[in-house]
């Protein structure tokens, strides 16, 4: 194993981005009593809840604004179409069964010291690593 060496700026941006994610999740709980789990919010949006739809619309707005202002490169390393669709199906079924995805378990769940979320996080990071070890990267 080799470790990619990151510049101090890489570390700072990675950490600051995390703080913003935590700020959003924190505001949702403190002001509205809501968990900022995206798969849960997505299900509410499917059921026609306006506030859930508006939250999801905010995601590309915020990401687009930051990418534009910072002049960041558009991510191009997407997997082949069949792999994207299959990944979406697996992620959808998995987060439905586990009642949460990365944001619900690995951010909000860990933040309230939930053992259930810790188990989910360890399991999905492990199977994610196993799949990458077997099938390789996305390109």
């Amino acid at each position, binding site marked *: 194993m*080799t470790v*990619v060496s990151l510049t101090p700026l890489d*570390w700072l941006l*990675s*950490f*600051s*981005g*995390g*703080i913003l*994610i*935590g700020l*959003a*999740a*924190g505001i949702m*709980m403190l002001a*509205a*009593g809501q968990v900022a789990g*995206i798969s849960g919010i*997505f299900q509410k949006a499917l059921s026609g809840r306006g506030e*859930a739809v*508006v939250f999801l619309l905010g*995601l*590309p*707005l*915020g*990401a687009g604004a*930051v*990418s534009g202002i*910072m002049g960041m490169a558009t*991510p191009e*390393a997407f*997997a082949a179409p069949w792999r*994207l*669709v299959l*990944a*979406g199906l*697996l*992620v*959808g*079924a998995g987060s*439905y*069964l586990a*009642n949460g*995805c990365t*944001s619900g378990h*690995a*951010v*909000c*769940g860990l*933040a309230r010291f939930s053992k*259930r979320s810790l*188990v*989910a996080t360890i*399991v*999905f990071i492990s*199977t*994610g*690593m*196993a799949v990458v070890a077997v*099938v390789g990267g996305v390109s």
Partner: protein
Amino acid sequence: MPRIVLFLLSGIIFGAGLALSQMIDPARVVGFLDLGGRWNPALVATMAGAVCTTALFYWLARRRAAPLLGGDCLAPMPTRIDTKLVAGAAIFGAGWGLAGICPAPAIAVSVLNPAALLFLGGFAAAMVIMRRLNRR
């Protein structure tokens, strides 16, 4: 502040964080999962920043009787660790590794690179199918 404005602002801040940390780039996520190859530890910093900040707010929220905008506090969350949780998380992780993308970054990056819509199509289809199966 109306609830709808709060939800929009939270979504924008969340999306901004995903872009700033470059978690919208599948190469970053796959790099983190590629423990046997060239491992990219950046996601550890992002997750640490997110979890610590969220934990601080959750601590503040617990000290209040009700959310700032009124309404009910969060109902108790499930605590059971069962096969459904472990199987679900395992399936989720397999998909996450296959494409290096999960729901929030996929939605956030969809305007920058529409390839993410293929993932989101599969994600939405699976959600709808699982809900139908569950209702039977």
